[in-house]
């Protein structure tokens, strides 16, 4: 049903709901409370939705994410063009997926299960925020008329003058900032920081007019503690174009941060599962022949004991100087030797032991590789050898791919790089496993081995790690989406769809970039570029 409510006298907001034409979560029902205040239009495809957005006819989008790709493309398009805020309805009650929508730019995310309870409130919240933003943009801060709206906001709203002193803070801002009394006139300029050594965000806005949208930062609370927040800042300019202050809208991200670490953990577990399967198999082969050899060696021992018994009997007969007994014992020895095939046993004994030793040596190596790979990570930034990180990761995933891949390495000499090694190894592993799977698809058809080429280079002030494969390649239409959370073309169970988005996040967190080039049928190259650190490694 196409729902459309309108009352002539109310300032009506325009909400567009994008959902598949079949029965889904009862979005319209969840929005009943808004009847009279909003017009609601339900569309079934992204194109129509984006056309409405482009025409500036939409105040808020509600995206039913049962069609993930469509919801992602709408989100990406509106984020690019500064379109209306979007609330995503996630079909699954899964924290990782919800978090991914926030990361993809959703203003809010409600699971299908929560729709009856929470959708109405979420929409009101977004509309209030939007109104507040516009009111502030309006010029004279518009405080009088919109005060009520601002007080009701679940988001924190802060207005500061040119010196960074607080002109207005709504109750949510007071709560997050942890103020005991009024914040009016307090200095807020230095309270929002995106990084240790960076100029505080509000000061940047006040000084240079910089705008931030959904930046992640830490806020210093009144008691000196800090909390993670997502913050948008914009300068306020008078109608004559003079800068008169700044406005900041922020949300407490403590919960979201927890969700994110949960999602990262999920992804890590998926990688570890893959890793464990590969390692298990690599150990299994030498185990196979050691196990069989030990069984045979036990038989050889029995054979030798039997023959040795005859040798003892022969010695006793010889000592008793009984020629008849000696002759019998010698014959018995010959028979036993023959039965046990003792010549073969003696020849094969040392061979079986040597081969088993080789096998156990191989297992020892595998365990050593595992140790190198998981080398006690303190979770702190350290200076590490990227070539070694790449090598130890390749060693670990090698067993699962050696049947279809030849590995080429071309490393430059690199200085130690300041990084979180375990995180980078996780990125390398994701990229290597993807490369392997891309090759596996080709090899399945042709039977020829593929190539994965690893290279490291110094290019100016950056280190560039390239991982190239001769796999199937990525079609152009997928290329721009491969870093999106949950975007996957792998069969169910083969990938979480989080590998590349997690990798992207990790590389970004290192101040680096992750890029991709691909040609279907030829192969794919991922390039990871990290800043060379000027800091010398700490003396140990």
């Amino acid at each position, binding site marked *: 049903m196409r729902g459309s409510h309108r009352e002539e006298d109310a300032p009506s907001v325009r909400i567009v709901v994008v959902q598949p034409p079949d029965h889904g979560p009862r979005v319209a029902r969840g929005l009943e409370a808004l009847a009279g205040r909003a017009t609601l239009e339900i569309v079934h495809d992204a194109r129509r939705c984006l056309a409405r957005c482009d025409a500036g006819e939409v105040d808020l989008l509600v995206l039913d994410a049962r069609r993930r790709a469509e919801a992602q493309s709408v989100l990406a398009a509106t984020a690019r063009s500064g379109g209306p805020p979007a609330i995503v309805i996630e079909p699954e009650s899964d924290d990782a997926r919800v978090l991914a929508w926030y990361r993809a730019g959703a203003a809010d995310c409600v699971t299908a299960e929560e729709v009856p309870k929470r959708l109405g409130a979420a929409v009101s919240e977004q509309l209030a925020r939007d109104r507040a933003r516009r009111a502030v943009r309006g010029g004279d801060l518009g405080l009088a008329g919109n005060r009520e709206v601002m007080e009701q906001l679940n988001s924190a709203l802060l207005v500061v003058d040119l010196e960074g002193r607080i002109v207005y803070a709504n109750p949510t801002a007071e709560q997050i900032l942890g103020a005991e009394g009024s914040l009016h006139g307090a200095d807020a300029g230095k309270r929002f920081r995106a990084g240790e050594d960076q100029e505080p965000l509000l000061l940047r806005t006040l000084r240079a007019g910089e705008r931030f949208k959904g930046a992640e930062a830490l806020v210093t609370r009144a008691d000196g503690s800090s909390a993670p927040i997502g913050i948008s800042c914009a300068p306020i300019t008078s109608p004559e174009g003079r800068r008169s202050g700044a406005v900041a809208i922020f949300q407490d991200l403590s919960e979201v941060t927890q969700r994110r670490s949960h999602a990262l953990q999920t992804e890590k577990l998926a990688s570890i599962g893959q890793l464990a399967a590969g390692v298990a198999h690599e150990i299994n*082969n030498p185990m196979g*022949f050691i196990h*069989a050899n030990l069984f*045979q060696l036990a038989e050889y021992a029995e054979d030798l004991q039997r023959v040795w018994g005859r040798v003892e009997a022969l010695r006793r007969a010889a000592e008793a100087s009984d020629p008849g007994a000696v002759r019998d014992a010698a014959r018995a020895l010959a028979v036993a030797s023959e039965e046990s095939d003792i010549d073969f046993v003696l020849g094969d004994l040392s061979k079986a032991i040597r081969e088993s030793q080789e096998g156990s040596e191989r297992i020892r190596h595998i365990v050593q590789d595992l140790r190198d790979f998981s080398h006690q990570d303190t979770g702190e930034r350290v200076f590490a050898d990227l070539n070694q990180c790449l090598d130890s990761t390749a060693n670990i995933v090698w067993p699962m791919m*050696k049947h279809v891949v030849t590995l080429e390495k071309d490393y430059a000499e690199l200085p130690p790089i300041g990084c979180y090694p375990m995180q980078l190894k996780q990125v390398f592993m994701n990229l290597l496993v993807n490369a392997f799977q891309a090759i596996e698809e080709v*090899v399945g058809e042709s039977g*020829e081995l593929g190539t994965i080429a690893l290279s490291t280079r110094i290019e100016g002030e950056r280190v560039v790690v390239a991982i190239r494969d001769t796999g199937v390649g990525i079609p152009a239409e997928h290329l721009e989406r491969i870093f999106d959370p949950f975007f996957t073309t792998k069969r169910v169970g083969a990938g979480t769809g989080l590998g590349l988005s997690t990798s992207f996040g990790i590389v970004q967190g290192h101040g680096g970039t992750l890029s991709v080039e691909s040609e279907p049928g030829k192969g794919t190259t991922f390039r990871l570029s990290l800043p060379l650190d000027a800091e010398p490694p700490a003396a140990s």
Partner: protein
Amino acid sequence: MSRERPLILLILDDEARILSALRRSLRREPYEIFTAESAVEARRVLETEAVDLVLSDHKMPGITGLQFLEEVAARRPEAVRMLITGWTETIDPNAVEALGIRAVIAKPWEDAALKETLRMAAKELGAGAGPAA
């Protein structure tokens, strides 16, 4: 046609140490054993020898055991085909059935179970091909 000769067993595995250990396990069994470290070598044996039993690894460079056994089924349908692998859980049982594979043996193998599986296979072979020697 008499069956005085021992049964011919072809074993294919890309891991030489596995071949060596299998030979050891089966040294007292009544088979004439040919081993191959690659499908190319194994094909050569198939061409020159009247192979009765084939035991193949699964994950190998460039070819899987299932693919190789499919080839054997086409070239020498009377040979009994078996798989020996550490990846038993990834083998599609439907493919095993479709290709008429007699047994899938897990690595590491139990000595007695391996011998018994081969004996059973040999017995059926004897029954199918007329009275065994």
